[in-house]
């Protein structure tokens, strides 16, 4: 070996030693932060026994029933609305506050953080002019004032997202939500009285006893306020639909999901219909709805009363294919409507995925043209964990 070879040998030995060190070191790289918590899974686990059940018609009283029913496992306050700026720019919004009881009975503990009540809220704004759909989620325990609900004065909140009655009055409610540059401040005044869905507010979802929810709606709330998107602020007006539902049992095992329609028509009528889809693709006979005339007359609709044809589909970039346009016929009312989303992608991806979007309605009622706006909710189309349902 000559000198140069030996230098090379030496360098090679040193390089090998350095490489060994590097490998050892690499094995010790750490990441301490795991990815996001699967909220749906946490809330979805646990049994249904020990909770109250929606198994008989009950007396609804207000404002008591604006507030929570903690003996039931699941409950929600659903606000969806179509808004327009002074210049006619369209927007849709959703603010939903879910309540979950993690155990049938309250947790006993000296700490004020202990609770079995958990709230999750979804907030979404549809902006078809910019083709943008923004959605956000927050979750909180109903402890030390972080989240909660109460009947009088009415208030439901998750952190700084809230809907509440003003001090000393029942109405108008103030809706407030703000997240990452999006802020919504609305005033809601009811144009109609609460509508009890199903059998006097008992809405059956499956064949078993107690496989039902208590469900009422205020389908028409006059809405005005401001919407801020990043640096721009819009003064907006429109209509909001509020759904209130509470229950303990989830969907029946053979049910895959549901398509919910809440449509406010130009003739003053408000149509609600949900189609429960079975795993085999057919429609459950438990599907039902109601139509409220401009005079406040409520007509119950059964699965046989409504025919739905899907006119278009939309494939989610996150996986799954959703129906994206419908022909909806309410046979006894001679109502024929085409329901079209104002933006295809109104899918919320918040651990679980579902589509909740603003729609336009065109059609005829008894031969006369009718228009309208509304919201459609589609669940069970995306693979992955199921959204807790009624």
């Amino acid at each position: 070996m000559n000198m140069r070879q030996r230098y090379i040998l030496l360098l090679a030995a040193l390089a090998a030693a350095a490489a060994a060190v590097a490998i050892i070191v690499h094995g010790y790289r750490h990441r301490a932060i795991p990815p996001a918590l699967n909220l749906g899974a946490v809330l979805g686990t646990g049994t249904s026994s020990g909770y109250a059940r929606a198994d008989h018609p009950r007396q609804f009283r207000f404002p008591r029933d604006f507030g929570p029913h903690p003996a039931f496992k699941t409950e929600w306050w659903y606000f969806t609305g179509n808004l327009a700026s002074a210049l006619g720019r369209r927007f849709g919004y959703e603010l939903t506050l879910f309540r979950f009881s993690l155990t049938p009975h309250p947790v006993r503990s000296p700490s004020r953080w202990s609770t079995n009540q958990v709230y999750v809220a979804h907030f979404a704004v549809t902006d078809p002019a910019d083709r943008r759909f923004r959605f956000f989620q927050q979750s909180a325990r109903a402890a030390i004032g972080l989240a909660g609900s109460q009947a009088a004065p009415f208030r439901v909140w998750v952190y700084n997202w809230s809907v509440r009655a003003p001090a000393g009055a029942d109405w108008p409610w103030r809706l407030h939500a703000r997240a990452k540059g999006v802020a919504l401040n609305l005033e809601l005044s009811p144009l109609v009285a609460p509508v009890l869905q199903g059998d006097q507010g008992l809405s059956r979802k499956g064949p078993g006893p107690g496989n039902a929810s208590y469900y009422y709606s205020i389908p028409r709330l006059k809405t005005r306020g401001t919407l801020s998107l990043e640096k721009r602020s819009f003064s907006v007006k429109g209509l909001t639909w509020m759904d209130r539902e509470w229950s303990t049992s989830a969907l029946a095992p053979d049910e895959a999901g549901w398509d919910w329609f809440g449509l406010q028509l130009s003739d003053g009528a408000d149509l609600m219909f949900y189609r429960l889809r079975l795993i085999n693709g057919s429609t459950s006979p438990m599907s039902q709805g109601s139509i409220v005339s401009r005079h406040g007359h409520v007509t119950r609709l059964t699965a046989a009363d409504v025919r739905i044809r899907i006119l278009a589909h939309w494939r989610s970039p996150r996986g799954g294919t959703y129906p994206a346009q419908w022909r909806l016929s309410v046979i006894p009312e001679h109502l024929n409507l085409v329901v079209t989303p104002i933006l295809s992608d109104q899918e919320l991806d918040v651990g679980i995925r579902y589509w909740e979007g603003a729609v336009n309605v065109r059609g005829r009622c008894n031969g006369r043209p009718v228009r309208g706006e509304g919201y459609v909710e589609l669940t069970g189309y995306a693979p992955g964990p199921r959204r807790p349902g009624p």
Partner: protein
Amino acid sequence: MVGVVWHANFRFLSRHPWQIFLAVLGVALGVAVVVAVGLANTSAMRAFRLSSRAVSGSATDQIIGGPGGLRERLYTHLRVDAGIESIVPIVDGYVEAKDETLHIVGVDPLAESGTAGDLAGTGAGAVRRLLTEPGTLLLGRATARRMGLKVGDSLTIRCAGRRHTIVLAGLLPSAGAAVAQDGLAITDISTAQIVTGQIGQLSRIDLTLPRGATGRRMRARIAGLLPAGTRLESARARTGTMVQMTRAFRTNLTAMSLLALIVGMFLIYNTMTFAVLQRRQLIGMLRAMGVTRREVFSGILVEALFLGAIGTTVGVALGVALGEVLVHLVTRTINDLYFVVSVTQLLITPAPILEGAALGIGATVLASLTPALEASRSTPASAMRHSAIEQRAHVLAPRLAIAGGTLAATALVFLALPTRSLVLGFAVLFMVIVGLVLIAPLMVAWLSAGACAVVVRMPGRSGGVLARFALRGITASLSRTGVAIAALMLAVATTVGVGVMIQSLRVTVRQWLSSTLRADIYVSVPQLDPGRTPQTIDPRIIADIRRIPGISGITSARRVTIETVRGPTQIVAVDFAPGRTPRFRLKEGDARTAWADFDADRAVLVSEPYAYHNRTRVGTDLRLLTGRGYLSLPVAGIFYDYGSEQGVILMHRQLYERDFGDHGVSSLGLYIRPGMSTTRVITAVRAAAAHRQMLIARSNRAIRSASLKVFDRAFAITGVLKTLAVVIAVVGILNALMALQMERSHELAVLRAIGFTPGQIWGLVTAQTGFMGFCAGLLALPVGLALALLLIHVINRRAFGWSMETVLTSSVLIQALVLALAAALVAGLYPGWRMARANPADVLREE
């Protein structure tokens, strides 16, 4: 030609394997110590950073509060009313479980993700149990396995003297962060509040703010929303402050490890010089054959590099093994003195290994530069002469001594600089050491000349001849003996210096303990985390204790850590028993007026380290952030204190309660009426606490010995390093003696041939090594004392702000002499035996 050089060198080394072995061992030991200390230090600190990151996640800032933390309502206010997102509440503390200390971190699993609340990967059922079942926790997989726990098992934990039964609800996701999760227990915030006794309180609120202008705007907005007594602080700065707290401790360890490396460097130098000396003939021949100087030079350098590389590799491996031991010593000390950090395994990080490797190879090359230059410079003819280098050594010795003296003197000038830099302190220390070491060869020459003069006058002919022979031998090969003696001297001087320093500190601390601890019995809450978690004694127990007969007075104290601009600061709020005026020794301030002002809530007292670090003097106004805004009070006196190196502020309990709104008591001092039995009162105290809270009640004597035990533990690691330095020095002496033996085998053979017995030869060698040891020991005394003075008055002062008396006992000095002699004699055993046994005929025939 190069091939010839390599070949010749290779053959030479292969005929002297022990020489290679000792050289490699020298490098390896030096590198091992540096690597081990580096790894232990970084392991402890990284574990701390990692676990705080595992707890804080991506948090950029923290909101922190007064002694009791934050009111939980503040979180609601910020999150709900002010609408501030990405904030998470944290309640944490330390609990004892199955002989382990667990860091309990209470989180809100529902709060914004990305931070501690992030429990993804943990089973949904487990998170649900955390939320709905008080008394459930999650552990890392490794921690659970070590504690022998399966999911669903329950265990008893103790915190602040209270027992809780808690169930393992699940395991933390193993995201490769095993070290970060070590000793970490995640619970729901409610469970953490209950277990750590912080109902209604939060330890802190973590924030994740964006970078840049938006982040700054938000920070300003949040700061404006905070009530008095709370503060917003950058998370990094905060972890930094905690790490900074241990800086002085870790710097000291690093300096100790470098000392070991220096001793190792002497060894390498010795080996390489000797290797060159031995080959002078060979080199001369090579040069005569036409090998150039450059080739000789690079040949030796490559050889050194090669030995250095092998030694370094072995050293790194040894260092990792040694690090395993040291990391436990380091962690224990940090846990005793600073904050809880759970490290159960050594974290092998690149920096200490690379540093150790660079130092090892660099030191080898540096140490062999002189011999390589020396070999290449010599003319072929002179290279063949043995005596050339020795002559040069004798010429060099006085010059080295002058250079050394100048270096040491310059270093002392640096001390006069108006700075408190610890690093500069160590630089001075090393300069003085190197300077004194350089003087050593001249001293050795003088000492042996002096000894010769004495021996000449001694009666008894043959003994005198042998003794003179031995002494002259040392002087004659000064280039090797001088270096070996210097290495041993340095190692022994280190033990003297460090020994005197520790002894001085220990005596000072003992005196301080006896002047501070005046009560007969001390009652306290078992505290796992030094100072951070505010643990209090149950007021009902205090009421019961007050009723125990035989107690003549009670001093109560509250020790808390408050957040100040300068990081966490300890406050001790005391209410002295009536008539029991404290007898703290004051360093500054008039005792009478100082205590009068203290009693009247007009002033506070600060400890010496506090005053040192914060440049506080008597009369300086202190500004403390309290629940009622800023409190401004003058310092009336500075007292000696060795309990905390960050320093403490002593204030009257009344003042503390008023301004901080905290009525808790952390410890009690009980004075007993004369004639009463201490044991009986302790039993009564324990009875009062029984079933309510586990309290520690200890007699004055017990607490003193416990304190000294902590002290001794803190210096255990120093002892280990000291021993290593001596081991390296012994290897050095052995090396030098082996070299001498080889070189002088001819002379010895002649002596044997003219009638000296093997026993006499053995005696000669022993006398020689004994004298070398004696020289090293003698020289080590002044050097060690200089080292001690520097450690006491410069290093300790700059590192900890402590002043102490220098305590010098003859035993330390005698031990040093004995150590040096013993080390030398042990190292001389084998060479002596070999020399005595050598067959003179064989040796002479080789000529």
